[in-house]
């Protein structure tokens, strides 16, 4: 069967090449269809309670994300030249078609009251020309609670221009580019930053595109170097390279046809595939050279023998790798599932092309004239032979040492942190992160979340008792360490009450009279005031907007829990105290629910934790089953898993000790390490069993295995280590860490396969070795 298949490929090489080309054109045509998805909130399952709450809040109150341009000065913004810039920028932002509303220090509405009049004015209609006018403006803006800290910092050193996008335009990258272009025009001496979620998303989308254009050529260069070091020939470089490039095209084509987007976690799938897929070409070519150097056979016979011999090991290696990637299907986060599924499919393509396209091309080429043993191969053989002798003498020490190391790593694992924020994925020093820091320094935090208060009846929010309950919640929230500021309808009602009482600060309270509250709010809406997130049209519900500094996911989880405890104690559905008496004597039930980005990040953290456990269990379990089935022994399967356990412990232990968090990218490492790393163990055990079957004793079998298969494994590990190392040049800090850690796991799993498995086999002779020998 295997031979017949091989013969068919060799007999019809042009058919194979032609077929591959047609399929490549088909897949390549779908690549432009791939879109970019960078919104972190979109990564959660859409039926997740946090996502549902956010979407409902967005439908009811509009976009929940902060988008702000911050202008920072060394001294003060209250200078004619800076104010002129701010005014011009506000006007230009308003001209952007997708922008709905711009609110800044010059165009904001200010309300001030006197005994006889209420004045509603634009904060700065004209640029002040005299010091008196400037001072009056400063007092006007800094004296307004609805502006101070929102559009002008408390110390007057920074100004913020809030931009609200039109419904349906929140994800438009073009708007952010227009804002950036305007901001750039006014840079210096003031420092101008564009921050908030739309900017973050635009930056991520831009970086993904940039990364892809850099990572592909660098990966190709790395593969060329590794292949040249391994084979020292043009064929040796060109054939595996063509295979992986084509498999990457097929993989992206599959994504395009199936409508899968590139996310910050899955866009590296083709790059990762190129690193992983090189192994199949290397093994096929390695075997071809081995067969060719034996001599005495025709070109056709040699290629047929190569394919026949490599079909099983390549299929086994590909299947276990695919199992590792497919284990990510157990993740509840779809970007991870996408990464797993498309890289897995790509691995199958790479294996298929290595067993069809490479033999078809080899069938058309002359046989190699000389043995292509590279300098690297000679060094490796010598080094691995020495290692074999060392293992013979120190098997027990190796196992004890490995056990001790495993314990040390395992002890550290509980310290492992989980991090979900996009800010940490980007890393410090990024322009986007710097902008967030500026918002934090001057405008009460770069993170915004919300609590929805739902009274369930029309005009419920106008009840004094309800408003006082909301005010108490705000006072509680403001005692929490990360919370900088809260805003709700209570702020507006108090402010209006004061203005209507000749600006007397004693009236900065919730009035006792519901009718007065209604009439004050009526006035506000008459004058063009938008209640926005503060209340729905029928005043049955509204949001408390919480501005807070950026905190780690762990702190965020604590914060969410603490807020929830308060809500459970004071609001429905759990608290009995959630009832308020209305003016007409009826009772109202007040519900409160956390909505917005903070619960989303916390849910993301929960999902990562669950997904990590499941994907690890799935990949270990499936690899064990596959290897056991293919080798016909559960013990053999278990033996191959042993080095992987040490690898996983090393990865997580090291991350814990170095303080590296488990995030959406690093949590994929475990499954990848198992999927790829098990190949080393399989190749090693298979060869060792073969040597044993040939009648060699344990020591000779070990030496032969290490100096032959060990060289192939080393090439493979080198290709993968350098391949994943390429991710070091990614714009994303999360992917830098991911690349480094996968590279590390490749080294650890190869080293473990070379040392732990032989040490076990030298001390213990499992039955599956003898069974094969008898067969």
């Amino acid at each position, binding site marked *: 069967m295997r031979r017949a298949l091989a013969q068919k490929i060799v007999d019809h090489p042009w058919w194979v090449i032609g077929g591959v080309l047609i399929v490549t054109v088909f897949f390549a045509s779908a690549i432009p269809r791939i879109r970019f998805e960078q919104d972190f909130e979109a990564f959660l399952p859409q039926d997740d309670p946090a996502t549902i709450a956010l979407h409902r809040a967005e439908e009811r109150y509009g976009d929940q994300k902060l988008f702000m341009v911050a202008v920072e000065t060394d001294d003060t913004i209250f200078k004619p030249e800076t104010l002129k810039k701010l005014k011009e920028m506000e006007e230009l932002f308003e001209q952007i078609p997708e922008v709905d509303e711009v609110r800044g220090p010059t165009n904001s509405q200010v309300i001030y009251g006197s005994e006889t*009049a*209420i004045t*509603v*004015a634009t904060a700065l209609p004209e640029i002040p020309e005299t010091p008196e006018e400037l001072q009056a403006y400063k007092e006007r803006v800094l004296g307004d609670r609805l502006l101070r800290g929102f559009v002008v910092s408390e110390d007057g050193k920074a100004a913020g221009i809030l931009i609200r996008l*039109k*419904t349906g335009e929140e994800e438009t990258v073009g708007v952010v580019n227009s804002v950036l272009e305007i901001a750039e025009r006014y840079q210096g001496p003031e420092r101008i930053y564009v921050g908030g979620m739309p900017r973050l998303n635009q930056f991520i989308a831009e970086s993904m595109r940039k990364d892809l254009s850099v990572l592909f050529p660098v990966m190709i260069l790395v593969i060329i170097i590794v292949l040249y070091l391994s084979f020292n020939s043009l064929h040796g470089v060109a054939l595996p390279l063509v295979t992986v490039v084509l498999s990457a095209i097929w993989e992206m084509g599959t994504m395009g046809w199936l409508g899968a987007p590139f996310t910050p976690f899955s866009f590296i799938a083709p790059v990762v595939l190129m690193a992983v897929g090189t192994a199949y070409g290397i093994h096929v070519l390695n075997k071809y050279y081995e067969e060719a150097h034996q001599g005495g056979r025709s070109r056709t016979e040699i290629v047929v023998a190569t394919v026949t011999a490599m079909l099983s090991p390549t299929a086994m290696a590909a299947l276990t790798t695919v199992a590792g990637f497919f284990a990510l299907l157990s993740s509840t986060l779809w970007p991870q599932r996408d990464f797993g599924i498309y890289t897995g499919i790509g691995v199958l393509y790479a294996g298929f092309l290595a067993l069809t396209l490479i033999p078809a091309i080899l069938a058309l080429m002359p046989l190699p004239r000389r043995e292509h043993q590279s300098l690297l191969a000679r060094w490796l053989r010598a080094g691995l032979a020495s290692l074999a002798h060392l293992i013979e003498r120190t098997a027990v020490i190796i196992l004890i040492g490995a056990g001790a190391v495993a314990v040390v790593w395992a002890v550290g694992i509980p310290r492992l942190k989980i991090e979900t924020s996009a800010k940490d994925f980007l890393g410090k020093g990024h322009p986007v992160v710097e902008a967030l820091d500026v918002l934090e320094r001057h405008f009460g935090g770069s993170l915004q979340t919300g609590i929805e208060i739902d009274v369930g009846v029309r005009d419920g929010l106008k009840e004094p008792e309800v408003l006082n309950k909301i005010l108490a919640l705000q006072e509680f929230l403001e005692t929490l360490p990360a919370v900088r500021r809260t805003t709700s309808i209570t702020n507006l009602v108090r402010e209006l009450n004061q203005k209507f009482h000749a600006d007397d600060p004693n009236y900065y309270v919730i009035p006792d009279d*519901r009718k*007065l509250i209604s009439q004050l709010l*009526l006035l506000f*809406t008459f004058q063009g005031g938008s209640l926005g997130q503060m209340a729905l049209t029928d005043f049955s519900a509204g949001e408390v907007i919480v501005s807070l500094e950026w905190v780690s996911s762990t702190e965020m989880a604590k914060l969410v829990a603490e807020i929830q405890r308060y809500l459970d104690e004071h609001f429905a559905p759990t608290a009995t105290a959630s009832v308020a008496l209305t003016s007409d004597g009826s009772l109202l039930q007040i519900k409160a629910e956390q909505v917005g980005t903070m619960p989303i990040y916390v849910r993301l953290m929960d999902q990562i934790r669950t997904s990590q456990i499941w994907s690890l269990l799935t990949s270990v379990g499936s690899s064990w089953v596959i290897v056991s089935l293919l080798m016909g022994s559960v013990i053999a399967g278990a033996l191959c898993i042993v080095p992987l356990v040490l690898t996983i412990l090393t990865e997580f232990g090291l991350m814990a000790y170095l303080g590296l968090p488990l995030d959406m990218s690093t949590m994929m490492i475990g499954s990848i390490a198992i999927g790829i790393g098990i190949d080393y163990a399989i190749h090693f055990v298979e060869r060792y069993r073969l040597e044993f079957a040939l009648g060699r004793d344990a020591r000779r079998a070990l030496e032969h295995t290490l100096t032959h298969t060990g060289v192939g494994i080393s090439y493979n590990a080198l290709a993968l280590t350098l391949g994943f190392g390429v991710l070091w040049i990614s714009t994303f800090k999360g992917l830098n860490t991911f690349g480094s850690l996968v590279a590390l796991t490749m080294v650890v799993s190869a080293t473990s396969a070379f040392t732990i498995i032989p040490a076990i086999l030298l001390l213990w002779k499992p039955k599956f070795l003898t069974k094969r020998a008898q067969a």
Partner: protein
Amino acid sequence: MKAVTKFVLAVLGLALLVGAGSLHAQQPLTGPQILQKVEEKGGMGGTQGELISDVKFDIIGKDKKTATNEFRFISKRKHGEPDKLLVAFVKPDDVRGTLFLSIKPQGKDADLWLYLPALGAVKQLVNTQERKGSFAGSNLSFEDLGSGFKYSESYTADEKVTEEKIKIGDKEYTTYVLTLRVKKEKEKTEDYPVRKMWVEKTEFVVLKGEGYNKTNKLETVFEALALGKFEDDTVPDKVLIKNVLDGSQTTITFMTRKRPAQPLPENLFDPNNLKNLKIDDLLKL
């Protein structure tokens, strides 16, 4: 919202409260000529003389929640004198008796006063903002209600017009379809670069309107849902103003339109007298 305001105001001002006589076309009219005839029918606040209207606003916000307000509009217009408009809030109960007074001298901005019964005080409203927002959560601004609006100040109508039939209830009306384009100098302040207007052919009543935003998307739609007669003129009795992008809408129903039986007392429009006015008395007018 603000863009909607001007759009609606224009349409309302030119179509709703008007009682101009029939104007029959003698020869094919151009777009600018039709626009001029529409504007000649009058501005916001109604025809000349004294007018009392009871109006209901049914608002559906973009959050799909609803609100209803009822008002009594009492207006007085006389050539050479300031336009006067008193708006009394009838419903909901919490704001019943709240009064707004607008006095707009010819060619000047309107002076506004507010009386809040819960506070028992009259305050002058000084609004110096360039753009005004919504009236009672609807798409209308209070000041513009009083002061009116001229389309031709900001827009130029295309010369070429087409004709289209529009059905309202059981009756079909032939309309001119006008395309209005914003004037260069008004590009910054107007949110709709292009508007379309369906004008009934014989009486120049605007039956439908559309506003296209800067991304060339249709954003607001105005539709007359029911027409009625006032002093021999066709006037819309019910109109719908809808923001098709965010889903918010306001339905305005004119419940009554009448001339007062007796001349309106002058102190009705006196700011100093606002706190003495009783809603029940105003409703008896």
